[in-house]
C-alpha cells in the first residue's frame, strides 16, 4: 500500500533535503579526494579488464597509429618490426583478393596499381589481440610472457631467453624479436599509459576514431558503447584464442 503523506510528513521531508544536500556536498569531495589519492599510489589491476575495438569502416589507412606506436614504444624503425600495422584489402570484381601493407602502412598506401574493376577495398589495423587464452603464454618455457591481472599480455624483457617459441605460436604474426633487446616484443596496449588512465598511443592519434579503447565489464568506457551498438567479430575465432581486440564491419577475407 503506497504511503500517504500528511502535512507533518511533508515538512519533515523538506527539512531533511537541505541537510542531505549539505551532507552529500561534504562526502562528495572527500570521496573524490580519497579516490584520487588511491589512483596515484595504488593502481589496482584486478579492477580492470582492458580490450580494444576496431571499426574497420572508419579506418582510412593513414598510418598515424603505426607511427605513433613506433615513437611511443621505441619500436625499431626498420620495416620488419611492428607492434601494430595496417593492412589494405582490395577485392576485385573477378573475386581476386589482393592484400598489402607496405612498411606496415606507416606512410599510408600508394594508389592501386591494377586497372581491373574493383568491388570493394578497406583497411584493417592489426595488433596483438591480447587473447584471453593466449598460445604465446602457454608455450613460453620460462614464463617470461604472461597475462596480467588487467587482461593485458606482456613480456618480461629481463626474463625472456629469446627462444622465439611464442613468435611461432602466435596465429596473428603480432610478435617479433626486438633486435636491440634480443627478446620477444609486441603490443602492450601502451601499458605504461593505460595504467595512468591515458589512452594507447594508436588510439590517441587515430583521426577517425577507428580505434576504440576501453574495458570489458561494468565500467563505462567508449568500448562498452561500441560493443553494445555493433556486430563484433574477432580474428581467427577457430583458433580458440579468445581475442580481446574486437572488430566491427570485419570482412570475411581478413585473416
Amino acid at each position, binding site marked *: 500500500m503506497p504511503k500517504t503523506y500528511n502535512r507533518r510528513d511533508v515538512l519533515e521531508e523538506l527539512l531533511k533535503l537541505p541537510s542531505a544536500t549539505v551532507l552529500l556536498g561534504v562526502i562528495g569531495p572527500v570521496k573524490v579526494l580519497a579516490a584520487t589519492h588511491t589512483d596515484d599510489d595504488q593502481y589496482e589491476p584486478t579492477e580492470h579488464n582492458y580490450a580494444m575495438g576496431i571499426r574497420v569502416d572508419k579506418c582510412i589507412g593513414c598510418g598515424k597509429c603505426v607511427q605513433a606506436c613506433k615513437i611511443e614504444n621505441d619500436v625499431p624503425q626498420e620495416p620488419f618490426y611492428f607492434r601494430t600495422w595496417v593492412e589494405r584489402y582490395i577485392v576485385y570484381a573477378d573475386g581476386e583478393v589482393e592484400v598489402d601493407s607496405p612498411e606496415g602502412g606507416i606512410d599510408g598506401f600508394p594508389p592501386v596499381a591494377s586497372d581491373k574493376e574493383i568491388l570493394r577495398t578497406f583497411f584493417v589495423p592489426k595488433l596483438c589481440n591480447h587473447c584471453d587464452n593466449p598460445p604465446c603464454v602457454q*608455450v613460453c618455457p620460462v*614464463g617470461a610472457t604472461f597475462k596480467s591481472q588487467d587482461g593485458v599480455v606482456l613480456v618480461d624483457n629481463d626474463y625472456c631467453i629469446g*627462444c*622465439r617459441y611464442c613468435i*611461432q605460436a*602466435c596465429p596473428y*604474426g603480432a610478435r617479433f*624479436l626486438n633486435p636491440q633487446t634480443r627478446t620477444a616484443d609486441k603490443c602492450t596496449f601502451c601499458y605504461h599509459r593505460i595504467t595512468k588512465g591515458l589512452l594507447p598511443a594508436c588510439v590517441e592519434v587515430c583521426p577517425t576514431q577507428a580505434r576504440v579503447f576501453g574495458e570489458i565489464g561494468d565500467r563505462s568506457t567508449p568500448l562498452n558503447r561500441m560493443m553494445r551498438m555493433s556486430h563484433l567479430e574477432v580474428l581467427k575465432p577457430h583458433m580458440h584464442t579468445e581475442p580481446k581486440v574486437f572488430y566491427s564491419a570485419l570482412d570475411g577475407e581478413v585473416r
Partner: protein
Amino acid sequence: MTPEHLAQLEAALAQVSGFVYPNEVELHWSILIVIYPYLTGLVAGAFILASLERVFNVKEIQPTYRLALLTALAFLIVAPMPLQAHLGHPERAFEIFLTPNPSSAMAMFGFVYAWYLMVVLLLEIWFEYRADLVRWRQNEKGVMKLVHWLVSLGSRDVSPAACAFDRKAVQFITIVGIPSAFLLHGYVGFIFGSVKANPWWSSVLMPIVFLFSAIVSGISLVLLIYYVTSLMRRKELDMKCLNTLASFLLYALIIDISLEALDFIHRLYESEESIEILERLIFTKLFLSLTIVQILIGTIGPMVMLAFARFSALPDELKRMIYFIAALLVQVGIFSTRWNVVIGGQLFSKSLRGLTAYKLELGGQEGLLVALGLLVLPFLILALLFKILPPWKDAETSPEQSAAQLT
C-alpha cells in the same frame, strides 16, 4: 642490429610473394633448429637399435651394440648446443631448469634430456663397460689407467656375480630406455606438432613421424659408422650383421614413408583453408628439398636399393657397397626431412596469403659454418669415446692397440 642482418632481411623482403604479415619477413628458427631434431633423432634411433640386441635378443647385430650406445651418447652431448647458440639470451638458458613454465612443451626439454642422459644412457654404458674397465685397468699404465679408473668410478669387482648383476642392470635400463628414447624424440615432434597456429606443423601424427624417421636415421648412422670403423681397423665386416641392419633399415623406411604418405593424403583429403598455400609451398619453395631430396633421393631411392641388394644374389662386396650408399642417402634424406619441417613451416605466412624466403648465411652465430661445426663435433666426440671405451669385442684384451689401429 647488424648491417648484415638488415641486408638479409631486405633480401628476404624482396623475395616475398603474395602477402605476409610484416613481422613474418624474418624467419626465426634457423638452420640450428634444423640440426637439433636431426641430432636427437640420431640419438633415439641409435639407442633403439642397441635395444633390439639387448631386449629382443637380435644376436646378429651384436657387433653394433656398443657402437650404437656410444654414438647415441656422442650425439646427445651435442644436441642441446644448437638450441643454446640460437637463443637471444644464451646466458639465461638455465632459467628453463630453474623456473620452468609447466604449460610449455619446450620447458620440459631440460628434464627429458637430463633423464635420458643421466638415467638411461650413462647408466647403461657404465654397467655395460664396468667389468671391461676393471680388466683393462689391470694391464695399463699412466693416463689411460687413470681415465679408466675414473670412468669405472673406482669399481673393482669382476666376480661372476657382479658381472651377472651388470647384465641384469643393462637389461633393466634398456627396458626403461626404449620408452625414454621414444619420449626423447616423440617429444621433439610434439614441440612442432602442438603449434596450432601453424598448419604445416600442427598434426597429431608429428611425434610418430618424428619417431620413425629417428629410427631410420639411427640405424643408417650406425650402419655407416660400423662400416667405416671396420674399414679403418682393417677388420672383416660381419655380413650377417650388415644384412640384418639393412633389413631393419628397409622396414623402418617403409613405416616412415607410409606415415608420411598418410599425413599427406589426410591433409589433401581434408582440404582445409591452408591447403592452397601449402600446395604452393610444396611446389615452389620446397620442391627441391621435399620432392626431390627427401622423397626421391632420401627415401624411395634407398628403399629400392636396399630391397634389391638384400633379397638378391649379389656378391657380398657389392651388397655392402649398396647398403653403404643407401645409408648415406638416408642421412641426406632425413636431414632434408628436418629442414622441410622446420624451415618449411616458416616459409608461408599465417595469413595463408604468401610465402617468404630463408637465406642461409655463411658466417655468424646461426650461419652455415656453425652448423657444419655442430654436425662434425659429434664425430670428434665419438672418436674420443672410442679411445676411452673401445666398443669392439676384439679390443677387450688390449684397448690401446685397437684404439691406435683406429687412428
